[in-house]
């Protein structure tokens, strides 16, 4: 190891600080907002000196929003629960469907397999609203509108292509001969998939699952159109803070903090997997 020149160290430190500031500032700002009242937030000129208050969180958790026009019932905790339910179930279903499919696309090169895989990916290209309009009508006819099942199904549009493409890359990275060696020793196709391919692609599957979870969690428009209040996730639920008597900035901020907390924690915890999953799996075709 040789000593890095001081000037380089300073420049690098400054650059890192700037990047951190750029990305962390909004989060820090929101956190500060979430412990202020609407009055202190809207103060001119703005100031960072204020008496912290937890009434925003209290309002969210108890579900009673005090506004100038009186008390408003909101159901933010319900939204949070919906988010968790929808995202978790969607990812679970996505993994059950997507991982075997990814394996098939990686291992069984059949006529048109590339086209089918690409078609699945292209679901991600279409503006969701384009799909949503016809879907709304079908869902109403099928009785799927405003059901968790229906939402989880639509969420597959987000979750499946992601899982499919990332996990497929991982499967393709496993040398086929390792699986052949296992199969020739007297094991069938499915045993090989379960005992050799799945464990070896484990990190990729975890990364794809995490990423899909975050995408599902952040989805807004599907639930906005297809579900009513009691099934809506936090992204949509936050709209409730736009009330007749103005926007409740403090509660919006607290809501945002609560809603990004799970994905934020998840991302921090699984950073390594995510970076690996994205850089290794996703760039491969």
């Amino acid at each position, binding site marked *: 190891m040789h000593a890095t020149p001081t000037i380089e160290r300073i420049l690098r430190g400054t650059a890192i600080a700037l990047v951190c500031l750029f990305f962390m500032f909004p989060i820090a700002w929101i956190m500060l907002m979430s412990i202020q009242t609407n009055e202190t937030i809207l103060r001119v000129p703005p100031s960072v000196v204020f008496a912290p208050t937890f009434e925003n969180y209290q309002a969210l958790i108890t579900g009673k929003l005090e506004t100038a026009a009186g008390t408003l019932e909101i159901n933010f905790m319900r939204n949070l629960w919906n988010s968790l339910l929808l995202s978790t179930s969607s990812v679970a279903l996505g993994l059950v469907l997507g991982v075997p499919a990814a394996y098939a696309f990686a291992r069984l090169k059949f006529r048109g397999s590339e086209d089918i895989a690409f078609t699945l990916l292209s679901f991600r290209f279409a503006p969701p609203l384009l799909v949503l309009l016809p879907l709304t009508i079908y869902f109403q006819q099928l009785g799927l509108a405003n059901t968790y099942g229906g939402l989880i199904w639509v969420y597959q549009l987000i979750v499946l292509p992601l899982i499919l493409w990332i996990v497929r890359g991982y499967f393709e990275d496993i040398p086929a*001969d390792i699986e052949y060696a296992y*199969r*020739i020793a007297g094991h069938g196709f499915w045993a090989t998939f379960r005992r*050799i391919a799945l464990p070896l692609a484990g990190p990729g599957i975890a990364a794809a699952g995490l990423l899909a979870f975050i995408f599902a969690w952040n989805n807004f428009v599907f639930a906005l159109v297809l579900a009513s209040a009691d099934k809506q996730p936090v992204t949509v639920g936050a709209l409730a803070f736009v009330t007749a008597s103005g926007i409740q900035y403090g509660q919006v901020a607290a809501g945002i903090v609560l809603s990004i907390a799970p994905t934020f924690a998840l991302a921090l915890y699984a950073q390594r997997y995510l970076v690996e999953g994205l850089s290794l799996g996703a760039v491969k075709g």
Partner: protein
Amino acid sequence: MSEAMLRLDAVDKFYGPIDEGVHAVRAVSMTVEKGEIIALLGSSGCGKTSTLRMVAGFEAVSRGRIHLAGREVQSLAPVRRNVAMAFEGYSLYPTVSVRDNIAFALKAARLAEAEVARRVGAVAEMLEITDILDRFPHSISGGQQQRASLARALIRKADLHLLDEPMGQLEPQLRTLLRGRIKHFIKERGLTAILVTHDQTEANALADRIAVMEGGVLQQYASPAEIKERPANLFTGTFVGEPPMNVFPASVAEAGGRLHIDLQGGLDLVYDLADFAAPVRERMLAARDVVIGVRPHAVRRAATGAPATVVANQWLGDQSHIAARFAGGAIVLVEHDRAALAEGAPITVAIRPEDLHLFDAATGQAISHGQALAG
């Protein structure tokens, strides 16, 4: 029953569409008897691995048929063919120890724990990997991985053992040592094995028969001695043997009651008609344009003969390799003693008629080996 253990009938392999893709294996037919060790010998890219993988079932057979232990297998799944294989790239399971890698198949066959341990111990000892049994594949060297992979294949009871360059990564001493042990192991258990190699010493030492391949074509399939003494064509002649056979284009003519073999550069080898049997002579004269071949060990320095000029003289510790300019090309001689020959020294070389191999210049097929007609 005298059914061969393995029979390939005109097997073709195309990577990509049939008749359009890479034609890796071309109409290969061969049989392997039970208990035989066969070496598949050829340079890199000649189709050895492709052939093996078709037998194992990892590559589809484009054309032709494969019979294994009396069953037609080319459309059976690998798991149902009852073959064991050591892969060129080792392909150990990265998530389990070397010991479990080796024992996997035995456990799948529901063998008693003690019996598994005993067999793993024995094969590990034979291959000198006892001390790494509890390590994981990524933490051992390439040579050790290769032996672990070989152990995984050899430990199994199967109709056929396919070993794809199983010793390529080993240092020479270990290779020589293991060669003997592996042969003993296979013979003792009556296993049938196909061993892919590009090392002719290994093929000669291990195999009952050698299948020489080049360009996807099976060039010759015979015992090591037969291949050495009676190469079927120019390729086998020059590919097998160390140093390689000397070859020279020539034309054959009869003049003045003697047989003249005219080499390039105005050189003329003259033999008595009686030196060659009548049928051989007839074939030589009929072919006219030929290639003559002579093994370096068979070239002698003599008082009378054809002139040559020494260009290099190397003492290898147990033999001399002497290279000399000869007939517009170069000839190599091997002698068992040191030769006091400096660069530029003139020598005369003699080639006995019984050491001459003749090949058809147009087709490369052998015409004769000494007194005997080829084929």
